[in-house]
C-alpha cells in the first residue's frame, strides 16, 4: 500500500506558499465544466461548497438535516482561535502552531498544523466581512478571551454561541450561491455509498430520507465533510443524527482510516441522570477558570449526601478533596482536558463520586462568589448557569454544579495528504472527519478554526490541482458502477427491514456504547480491549439476527436511518479497538494503563509510537491491516507534558 503525504519540501513557514504556487489551476471559464459533491454542511462543508460556487464550479451539497443551517458545528460554544495578536501579548503564527502541536501531544504533522495557524487570521477577516457579530470592546474593535492550553488571548467569540454564528455565516454564503444557481442543496438526504469508477471517486449513492428513494449522483470529485464519529459511544455531546457512515462507506471502498482510537473526552459535561438519557450536554471549559473541582474525602460523606442527610455545602473544608489542586499544584483546576477527565474518573472509581449514579464530581463556585461577588460571576457565566439549572433543576449559585467527562470530538478520521485528499483519487475529507491537525488531543477553540481553514482556504486551491488533470466528461448515473453501488445499498436496507427481531436499534446502540466507553474510553488496557473486541463481534452478529426495524424503505423512517448508522458504528468500533490495542503508549486524551509514570501520569513513547496509525480495509470479516506514517519533527522539540 503506497500512500504519500505530499508534504512539500523547504522551510516550514514557506511550505504552503510554495505549494500553492506549484498547484495546477483550472481556468475560470473551465470551472463550470466540473461538478463537485460536498457531503455535510457544517463549517467544513458549507464553507467549501460556498467557496467552490463562488469560484464557478457546479456544486451539489448533501445533508441529513432539514436545513443546511442545522449541522452540529452550530453547538460549539467557546470560540475560534487565530494568531491575530490583537491583544499585543506576543502571539504569532509560530506560537499558535507550537501550542496546537504540543496540545496534540506530538501526534500530528508539523506541516499541516503550521498551515492551519497560517490561515487562521484570514478566517476571522472572512467571518467579520460576512456579518458574524463577534464580541467587541467599547472602542469597536474585536475582543479576545483565553482558553486552555495557551498563555495568550487568541480566542474570538460571539457570546456562548460562536459555532452558531460562524455556521450561519457560512450558511449565508452558501445560500447566496444557491440563489446564484451554483449550488444545489439536497436536504434530508443521506450518503450511503461512495462510487468509484476506474479507481477514482466519481459520485455517491444517497437515500432521500422523505421518499426513501435511492439516488445516484455523479461528479468529478467528492468532498466528505461529515464530522466525527463520537456517537459510536451512544452517549456523547454530538447531535443525535451525527454518524460515521459516510467515512465508513468510503473506508470500505478503500479509503484509509487514521488514528481511529483518538477520541476526546471533555471534562465538564452535565452528568448522566439515569438509563433514560439520550445525550450529554457540555458546559463550557471556561467554567474551570473560577470553579473548584472536588469530591468528599470519605465515602461515608458521599453516602450521607446521597441520602440527603446533609447538603454538599455542609461538608466542612477539611473533609473536601480538591484533588486537581492537590495533585497538580501549579495548574490546579486548569489542567488540560485529558488530565481533568482522567482524574474525575479515578475519584469516581474509588467510590467517591457524587450524585445519584456516583458518576459525578463537584464544580464549586462558592469561593469565587465570596471573592468576586455574585454579579461578577453572573456576568461571566450567567447563561451557562441558567442552562445548567434548566437541565438539572439545581441552582449553581447556591449549590455546587455536578460534572462528569463525556465524549465530545474525534481526532481520528480519514487519512488525507497535504491536499486533504484521501488515498482514493478525487475523494477529499475536511474538518473533523479527517485526522490531520489535532494529533492525540484537540485544544479548545481549534475545531472551528480547522473546519473553516479547510473549507475556505485550503481545499478551494488543492481541488483545482486534481480537477485540472481530469477530463470534462461526466460519468452517467446509470453507469454499471453506480448501479452496483445502489444495489449494495438496497440489499443492506432490505436485510435490515426483514430481520424483524426482538431488540430495538437503541438497545444495541447502548450496548455498543457501554463496551466502548468501559474499554476504549478514557483509560484502556490490553485485557479489557481484547475482551471488548470479542464482545463487539458477538454484538454485531446478534444485531444482524435480532434487530427490529419496522416500516418500509419508501417513507420517512427514522428507525431505518438509525439502524443503518448503528450497523456502521458496530464495524467502526472494532477498528477503534484494534487501534487502541496497537498503541501501547499513553498520549493525549488516550491513557494506556500499561504506559504510565511512577506517579500514575500518562507516559508517551516517542521511540516506538511516533506515527500515525493508518488502517486499511481488506474485506468483510478479514482483519484490517495497519500501516504507519512516521511523523517527523524538525521544528519542535518533543517533551513530556507535565502540569504538576
Amino acid at each position, binding site marked *: 500500500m503506497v500512500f504519500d503525504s505530499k508534504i512539500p519540501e523547504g522551510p516550514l513557514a514557506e511550505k504552503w506558499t510554495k505549494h500553492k504556487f506549484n498547484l495546477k489551476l483550472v481556468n475560470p471559464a473551465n470551472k463550470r465544466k466540473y461538478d463537485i459533491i460536498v457531503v455535510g454542511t457544517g463549517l467544513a462543508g458549507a464553507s467549501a461548497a*460556498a*467557496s467552490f460556487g*463562488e469560484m464557478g464550479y457546479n456544486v451539489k451539497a448533501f445533508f441529513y*438535516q*432539514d436545513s*443546511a*443551517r*442545522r449541522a*452540529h458545528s*452550530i*453547538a460549539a460554544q467557546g470560540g475560534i482561535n487565530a494568531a*491575530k495578536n*490583537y491583544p499585543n501579548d506576543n502571539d504569532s503564527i509560530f506560537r499558535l502552531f507550537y501550542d496546537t502541536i504540543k496540545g496534540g501531544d506530538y501526534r500530528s504533522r508539523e506541516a499541516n498544523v503550521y498551515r492551519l495557524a497560517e490561515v487562521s487570521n484570514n478566517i476571522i*477577516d*472572512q*467571518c*467579520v*466581512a*460576512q*456579518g458574524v*457579530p463577534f*464580541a*467587541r*470592546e467599547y*472602542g*469597536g474593535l474585536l475582543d479576545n478571551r483565553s482558553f486552555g492550553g495557551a498563555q495568550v488571548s487568541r480566542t474570538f467569540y*460571539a457570546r456562548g*454561541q460562536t459555532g*452558531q*454564528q460562524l455556521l450561519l455565516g457560512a450558511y*449565508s*454564503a452558501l*445560500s*447566496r450561491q*444557491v440563489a446564484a444557481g451554483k449550488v444545489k442543496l439536497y*436536504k434530508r438526504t443521506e450518503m450511503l455509498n461512495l462510487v468509484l469508477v476506474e479507481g477514482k471517486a466519481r459520485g455517491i449513492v444517497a437515500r432521500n430520507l422523505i421518499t426513501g428513494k435511492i439516488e445516484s449522483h455523479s461528479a468529478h470529485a467528492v468532498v466528505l465533510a461529515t464530522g466525527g464519529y463520537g456517537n459510536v459511544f451512544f452517549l456523547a*455531546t454530538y*447531535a*443525535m443524527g451525527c454518524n460515521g457512515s459516510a467515512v465508513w462507506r468510503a473506508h470500505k471502498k478503500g479509503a484509509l482510516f487514521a488514528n481511529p482510537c483518538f477520541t476526546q473526552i471533555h471534562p465538564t459535561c452535565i452528568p448522566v441522570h*439515569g438509563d*433514560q*438519557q*439520550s*445525550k450529554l*450536554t457540555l458546559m463550557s471549559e471556561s467554567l474551570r477558570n473560577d470553579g473548584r473541582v472536588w469530591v468528599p474525602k470519605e465515602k461515608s460523606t458521599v453516602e450521607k449526601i446521597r441520602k440527603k442527610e446533609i447538603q454538599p455545602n455542609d461538608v466542612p473544608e477539611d473533609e473536601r478533596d480538591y484533588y486537581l489542586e492537590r495533585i497538580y499544584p501549579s495548574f490546579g483546576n486548569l489542567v488540560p482536558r485529558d488530565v481533568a477527565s482522567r482524574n474525575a474518573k479515578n475519584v469516581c472509581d474509588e467510590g467517591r463520586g457524587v450524585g445519584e449514579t456516583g458518576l459525578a464530581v463537584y464544580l464549586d463556585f462558592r469561593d469565587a462568589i465570596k471573592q468576586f461577588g455574585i454579579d461578577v460571576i453572573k456576568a461571566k457565566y450567567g447563561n451557562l448557569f441558567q*442552562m445548567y439549572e*434548566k*437541565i438539572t*433543576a439545581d441552582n449553581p449559585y447556591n449549590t455546587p454544579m455536578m460534572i462528569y467527562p463525556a465524549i465530545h470530538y474525534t481526532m481520528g478520521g480519514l487519512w488525507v495528504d497535504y491536499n486533504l485528499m484521501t488515498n482514493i483519487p478525487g475523494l477529499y475529507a475536511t474538518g473533523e472527519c479527517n485526522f490531520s491537525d489535532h494529533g492525540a488531543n484537540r485544544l479548545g477553540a481549534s475545531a472551528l478554526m480547522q473546519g473553516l481553514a479547510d473549507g*475556505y*482556504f485550503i481545499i478551494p486551491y488543492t481541488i483545482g490541482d486534481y480537477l485540472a488533470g481530469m477530463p470534462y466528461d461526466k460519468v452517467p448515473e446509470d453507469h454499471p458502477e453506480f448501479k452496483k453501488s445502489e444495489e449494495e445499498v438496497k440489499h443492506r436496507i432490505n436485510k435490515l427491514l426483514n430481520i424483524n427481531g426482538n431488540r*430495538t436499534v*437503541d438497545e444495541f446502540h447502548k450496548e455498543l456504547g457501554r463496551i466502548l466507553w468501559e474499554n476504549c474510553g478514557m483509560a484502556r488496557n490490553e485485557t479489557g480491549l481484547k475482551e471488548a473486541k470479542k464482545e463487539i463481534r458477538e454484538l454485531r452478529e446478534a444485531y444482524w439476527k435480532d434487530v*427490529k426495524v*419496522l*416500516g418500509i424503505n419508501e*417513507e*420517512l423512517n*427514522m*428507525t431505518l436511518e438509525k439502524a443503518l448508522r448503528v450497523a456502521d458504528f458496530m464495524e467502526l468500533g472494532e477498528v477503534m479497538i484494534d487501534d487502541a490495542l496497537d498503541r501501547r503508549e499513553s498520549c493525549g486524551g488516550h491513557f494506556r494503563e500499561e504506559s504510565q509514570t511512577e506517579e500514575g501520569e500518562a507516559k508517551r513513547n516517542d521511540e516506538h509510537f511516533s506515527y500515525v496509525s493508518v488502517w486499511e480495509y481488506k474485506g468483510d470479516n478479514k482483519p484490517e491491516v495497519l500501516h504507519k506514517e512516521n511523523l517527523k519533527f524538525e521544528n519542535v522539540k518533543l517533551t513530556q507534558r507535565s502540569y504538576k
Partner: protein
Amino acid sequence: MEKGRSYTLKVWRQKNAASRGEFKTYQVNDVSSGSSFLEMLDILNEELTKKGEDPIHFDHDCREGICGTCSLFINGRPHGPEEEITVCQLHMRTFQDGQTITIEPWRARAFPVIKDLVVDRSAFDRIIQAGGFISVNTGAAPDANAIPIARENAEVAMDAAACIGCGACVAACKNASAMLFVAAKISQLAMLPQGKVERKRRAQKMVEQMDKEGFGSCTNTYACSAECPKGIEFTHIARLNREYLTSKFTS
C-alpha cells in the same frame, strides 16, 4: 430524582403529507422527572417499536437548544410551557405526574406536515437565499479590525443573530406570519456597516419571498416574541418595517 411517573399523551399522527391526520392517545409509564421531554418520547417509541407499531416521528438533533430542529406544539404552545427554551430543553419535572399532554406539529400553510410531527420548513431557507447574506466572496475580506463597530450595535446585531430558525414564531402567530424570523436577519445585517450596502435590496427581496411562501401578515400581537425560545424581541420587526419602507420610498 423522581422515577415512575406516568403521562397520557394525545399525539398528532399523520402517515404522510397526502393523508389526513388524527390524534391518538398513548400512555407512557416509568418516566423519570429528570428526563427531557424528547427522552420521554424516546421511551414511548421504544415501547411502540416492541409492540410492532410505527414510532412517532418528530424532528430533533442537537438536543441542547441551538440547532433549531425540534418543533413541537405542546399543550397549545410552541416548545411547551416554559419560557425561552426549545422542546429539547424541556424536562418532565415541568409536568405533573399523571398529566395529559397534547402534542401537535407546527401548524402553518407554509410549513406542510411531512409525517406525524415533522414539518417542512424549507420556506425559511428560501427567504435567506433571497437576500439574507452579505455578498462577499471568500478571500475578498479586509482586516477584521479595519472597520470598528460600536459595541452597542454589535450587541444588537448579536441579539438578532441568536435566531435558531426553528419556526416557533410562525407556529405561535394566529396569522402564521414569519415577520420575526425575517426581521431578525434583516436587523442583524442592518446594524453592521458591512450589511448596509445591500440593505435596500435585501429588505425588498426577503419580504417578497416571505409573501410568496404563503406566510400570513403581521398584525402586531407579538405572540412570536413571547414564544421565541431565544427571546428575539419584537423591536426588530419595527426595524424591518423601517428598512422595508425606506427601501420602497427611495428606490
